[in-house]
C-alpha cells in the first residue's frame, strides 16, 4: 500500500499486534480471582508516573471521578491522557499537575457550560502540550483496532484536514476501491479506569444505558481498574449474561465506590451536580482558586466517602437522584447571565 500522507502527531499507545497478544496472554488471567481492593491500592498498583491512559465514560458522564481524585492525592505526575471527549476529568487532572501531555479529540471545554479555564490556561501557557490531535470516532476506532488485535483500522474520517496532519494516522490508497483511506493506529493505553453500575468480585461488569467506547477500551487497555456503584453476587450477572459489557478476564482491580462519578452524571442513578461544577468553573479561573478547590475537596479528605459527605452527603445525593429521575427542575448556576 502506498502511503499518501502521514500525520506528524506523536504515536502514543501503539503496540505491534504480536507484542499485544503476548501481553494479553501473559498478563490477563483467565482464572477467576477475587479482585476487590480499595481504590488507593488499585491506583498505587496499576497507575504509574509517565503512563498514557484513558478513562471510560464521556468526560463527566459515568467517569470514575473517585479514581481521578485518588490519582491526584497520590501525586501522580507526567501522565499523558487520551482525551476522548474529556471534560471535567481532563480539566482537573491538568489543573492538579497529573497530566502534562494530551492526545486531543475534545478537551479544554465543558460542553454546554463553556470552555475550561484551567485546561486552557495550561495549554496557552505551555505547561501542557497537545502532542496529537484526533477526532472522537478516531479514538473510538483506535481502541477498536486494539480490541480486535490489529495494528490499525481503516476509516473515512479526518481525511483532508489539519486534524489528520497533527494526528498519528496515515493515509494510504485503499487496495480495493483505489480511494484514499485513513488508517488509525491501534491504541493500547497503559491503563484505563472505567466506572460501572455493578459488577461482581471478579470484575464481570454491567453498564446501564449507552456504553460509549468502553467495550472496546476495556479490551484495549493493558491494565484495567473497574470502579463500581455496587458489587453484586456472581449469580446476578449469570442471570442476565447479555448485560455484561466487560468480562472478568480483562479486569485487574475491582473497587466499590458509591457515587463514584460525582460531580458527573451516572445514568439512571444521579444527574450531574451543576452547583459543584459551577464552583469548580469559578475557582479554576485562577491558580489560587485551583489550589483552594484541591485542598478543600481532595487533599483534606482521606477517601471518596469523606468527599461525598463534604459535598452534601445523603441529602445532596438524594437531590441528584431526583434530578436524574426528572422529579426536580435543573438548576445550573453557570447558565445565569450577567
Amino acid at each position, binding site marked *: 500500500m502506498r502511503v499518501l500522507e502521514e500525520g506528524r502527531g506523536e504515536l502514543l499507545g501503539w503496540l505491534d499486534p504480536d507484542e499485544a497478544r503476548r501481553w494479553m496472554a501473559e498478563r490477563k488471567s483467565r482464572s477467576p480471582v477475587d479482585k476487590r481492593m480499595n481504590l488507593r491500592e488499585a491506583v498505587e498498583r496499576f497507575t504509574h508516573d509517565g503512563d498514557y491512559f484513558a478513562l471510560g465514560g464521556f468526560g463527566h458522564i459515568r467517569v470514575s471521578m473517585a479514581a481521578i481524585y485518588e490519582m491526584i492525592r497520590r501525586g501522580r505526575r507526567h501522565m499523558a491522557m487520551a482525551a476522548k471527549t474529556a471534560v471535567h476529568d481532563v480539566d482537573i487532572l491538568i489543573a492538579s499537575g497529573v497530566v502534562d501531555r494530551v492526545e486531543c479529540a475534545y478537551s479544554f471545554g465543558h460542553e454546554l457550560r463553556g470552555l475550561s479555564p484551567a485546561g486552557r490556561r495550561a495549554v496557552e501557557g505551555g505547561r501542557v502540550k497537545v502532542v496529537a490531535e484526533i477526532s472522537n*470516532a478516531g479514538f473510538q476506532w483506535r481502541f477498536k483496532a486494539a480490541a480486535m488485535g490489529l495494528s490499525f483500522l481503516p476509516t473515512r474520517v*479526518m481525511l483532508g484536514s489539519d486534524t489528520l496532519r497533527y494526528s498519528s494516522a496515515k493515509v494510504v490508497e485503499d487496495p480495493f476501491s483505489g480511494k484514499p483511506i485513513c488508517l488509525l493506529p491501534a491504541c493500547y493505553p497503559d491503563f484505563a479506569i472505567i466506572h460501572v453500575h455493578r459488577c461482581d468480585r471478579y470484575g464481570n461488569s454491567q453498564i446501564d444505558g449507552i456504553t460509549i467506547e468502553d467495550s472496546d477500551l476495556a479490551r484495549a487497555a493493558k491494565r484495567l481498574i473497574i470502579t463500581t456503584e455496587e458489587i453484586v453476587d456472581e449469580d446476578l450477572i449469570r442471570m442476565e449474561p447479555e448485560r455484561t459489557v466487560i468480562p472478568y478476564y480483562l479486569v485487574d482491580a475491582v473497587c466499590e465506590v458509591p457515587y463514584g462519578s460525582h460531580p458527573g452524571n451516572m445514568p439512571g442513578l444521579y444527574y450531574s451536580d451543576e452547583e459543584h461544577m459551577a464552583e469548580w468553573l469559578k475557582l479554576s479561573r485562577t491558580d489560587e482558586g485551583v489550589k483552594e478547590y484541591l485542598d478543600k475537596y481532595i487533599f483534606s479528605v482521606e477517601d471518596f466517602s469523606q468527599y461525598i459527605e463534604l459535598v452534601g452527603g445523603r441529602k445532596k445525593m438524594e437531590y441528584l437522584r431526583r434530578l436524574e429521575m426528572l422529579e426536580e427542575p435543573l438548576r445550573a448556576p453557570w447558565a445565569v447571565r450577567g
Partner: protein
Amino acid sequence: MMDYTATELMACVASRTLEDGRSVLVGTGLPMVAAALAQRLHAPNLLIIFEAGGIGPRIPTIPISVGDSRTFHRAIMAASMDYVMSCAQLGLVDYAFLGAAQIDPYGNLNTTVIGSHDRPRIRLPGSGGGNDAGSLCWRTIILMMQDRRRFVERLDFLTTPGYLTGPGARERAGLPWGTGPYRVITQLGVMDFDEVSKRMRLLSRHPGVTLEDIIENTGFQLIIPEEVPVTEPPREEELRLLREVIDPAGIVIG
C-alpha cells in the same frame, strides 16, 4: 410583530431546515433545541442521534452533554460511539449540526486553535465529533456567529472538512461521495454553497439586516445573488415552544 432574539431566530431557521423522516446527528446547545423544535412541529419522525450512543430519544429536557442520560431517555437504542459513527460512515445519517470558531469560503471549520498549533493564542476544544460528522454525514448545517474574525479567507487550523479547496476536493481526499456543508446559519442570515464553485453564497438575510451588514461582517468574498429574500421571522408557535416547552430555563436560548 413579536420580539425575538437572534438565537431564537437561528433555532427556528435551523429547525425548518430539517425534513421529516430524516436522521440528524446533534451536538450540544442550539442544535438540540433546533432538532427538538422540528420534532414538535413539521418533523415528528425526525430521528435524533447523539454521538455517544443515544439513538431516537424523546428528549425530556435540554441535555448538558451529548452523552448525558437525557440523550437516551426513552430512546429506541442505547448504543455506543462505534455504533453511531459506523452508521454515519455507512451513509445512514442525513444531517449533522456543527458550530465553529472560524469558517472559510468553502465551509471548512476550525474548532482547534487560534494562533499556532504548538503555542496557541486561544486553545479550543478540538474536533470532538465535529470532524467525524463533517466527514461522514450527508449534509452538514453550521450554526455560528458571523463577523470578520470568524468568517475568514484562511483558517488558523482546518479541523473539519467543508469543500476543502473547491469542486471535487472532498472526493479526491477520500471523503464519502456527495457529502459536505449544506447551510450556514448565523445571526445575520442564511448561506448555502454554489453548486459549481462550492463557495459560500448568501441565501437570505434576516429581518432588519442589510446586505452591507452581511458584507461588512464577512472576511471573504461572499457570492451575492441578485435577489436576496428576507428570512421568515419566528412564528408565534415556534417561540412559544422554544420558551415554554423546550428550554424553559433559558439554558441555551437565554
